[in-house]
């Protein structure tokens, strides 16, 4: 997905204005002329300037550079699906990890990605069951990361 530079420039300009407005509420360091707003303010000002230059460049090239150019993959339903399943896997983990636990979430994520990428089910299912256990053992037992157990009882 390729946007015209003017559109991205406008997004960054909005960001820099938001930062400049937001830092107005920051206090100065007591007894000093300077405060926590100075540095982000300076950065936001430069970002604003660069955004204007980007907008100008995008506008000048608007004949050759369309406002939104759709990448080749967006014309292929299979690749859009691949992309969405990967994003969905992360969102699913964020929402479900504490309830279901790492092992179940990991298996669901792997099986859905494997099948989306057309791995043979005879290979995908055993891998999706074994790999999360392997990763769990490395991180939970060896590195002592408290990965959530969720609905499963504490097994090791």
């Amino acid at each position: 997905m390729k946007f015209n530079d003017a559109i991205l420039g406008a997004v960054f300009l909005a960001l820099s204005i938001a930062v400049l407005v937001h830092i107005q509420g920051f206090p100065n360091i007591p007894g000093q002329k300077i405060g926590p707003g100075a540095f982000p303010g300076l950065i936001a000002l430069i970002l604003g300037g660069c955004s204007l230059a980007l907008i100008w460049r995008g506008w000048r090239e608007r004949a050759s550079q369309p406002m939104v150019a759709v990448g080749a993959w967006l014309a292929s339903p299979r690749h859009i699906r691949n992309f969405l399943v990967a994003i969905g896997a992360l969102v699913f983990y964020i929402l479900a990890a504490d309830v279901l636990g790492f092992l179940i979430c990991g298996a669901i994520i792997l099986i859905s990605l494997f099948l989306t990428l057309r791995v043979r089910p005879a290979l995908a299912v055993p891998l999706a069951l074994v790999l999360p256990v392997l990763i769990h053992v490395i991180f939970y037992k060896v590195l002592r990361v408290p990965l959530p157990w969720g609905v499963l009882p504490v097994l090791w």
Partner: protein
Amino acid sequence: MLATYAQAFALIMDPYVLTVILFSALFGLFVGCIPGLTATMATALLVPITFFMPPVPAIAAIVTCTAMAIFAGDIPGALLRIPGTPASAAYTDEAYAMTRKGQAEVALGAGLVFSAIGGLFGTAVMIVGAPALADIALRFSDYEYFWIVVLGLAGAVFIGNASILKATISLLLGLLIACVGLDNPAGFPRFTFGSAELTGGISLIPMMVGMFAVSEILRFMVHLDPPLRLATDRIGNIFRGMGALLVKYKWGLLRGSALGTVIGIQPGSGADMAAWMSYATAKKFSKEPEKFGTGHVEGIVESGAANNSSLAGAWIPALVFGIPGDSITAIAIGVLYIKGLNPGPSLFVNNPQNIYAIFLVFILANLIMIPLGWLAIKVAKRVLTVSRNIVMPTILLFCIVGSFAINNTVFGVLLILVFGLLAFVLEENGFPVAPAILGVVLGQMMEENFIKSMIKSDGDVTAFVTRPIAMWLAIATFVILFWPVGTWLWRRFGVRFRY
């Protein structure tokens, strides 16, 4: 100094450290071999594990893994015509042409042997140069440090980017991200929007895993390339004839190694640019430039050495100033801070054994590259046929665990999602990602020196240029900053003045 080296040697020869080095070497070779996985990604994936190690093995893991990955990128280049990492892209066509001529073993052997020699050259420069530079840097005050950071950032933006404007914007986004949280000279919570998670700032590790690993996985998900096909499965003795090549191309080897080291030192440009530039120089200085592109080993010798020597070069500014020479050292600096080994000249005075241990790891990594690389080439056929459809989902799960492990909350997973998507969109639109990472790594240091200097001088901006070293650094920065503007003006108006 010898006593310190003995101490450092003892640190390295620990069985635990040696095991870490061996495993990270194998990991680096595997990642480098698989097209679409870069050395930077390998580092980003290693960091959550190094998080749980003492400083020396943590750094050893990164150094070894990257050296191996940069070499291993040559393997699919020669056999599949797809570079394993961007650092091998410069001579992939050449290596593939050699394979087609039945000389796969020469291409791979040259890649391996001269990678190791280049790596050792860069290491030698680092061993001599870094402590000497640290001696000078000890005299620096906040003003000089401010300029050093600005100079590093300017270099990152202006060198090797197609669009300077977009690289600058990427850098500024990084600097703004560094502002989030409580960790600023005033201790005031900025841009946290009442979130307890954001008060601690945006953790560097999940952000890097997102920008370098998750974005790469997303790119794989939408890639439309045809499946990979091996060009040959017969590889002879890779070491035959290497001695003759060494004698024949000794000057090219030296030139490539030296150029690679210099490009590595230069902030923001790393192994891939070192390879492209040396390949071009090799062709320019060659006695038989017409043979380049037809399966001629000369370019591989020179640029294969250059990309590995740049790795060591990049560590010089990283250790002495805390300024990353490439995106790998940007990650490594984050690790050094987490381990309490804040980079800077005082590190050379207070903890010299750790620094020397890093030097020794570089030597060791480049030496074990030869046998392990030989092994990797032997099993390459098997590794390259491992389906990426299986590897990529597994890496995604690994990213999830790794980002969770840093603070033990799913907030880390949210960060890899957000930054993975951000990096994906930015790169699709021609914004380089590396400057953003440099901005995040250096933002805090830059702000601290800026605020301290402003308070010391009581708001007087001229104090930034009145100390002699500060003034020269300022001049250097402005030369880099205004070089493109100057050349543009010259091209536009200079011609007219002559009449």
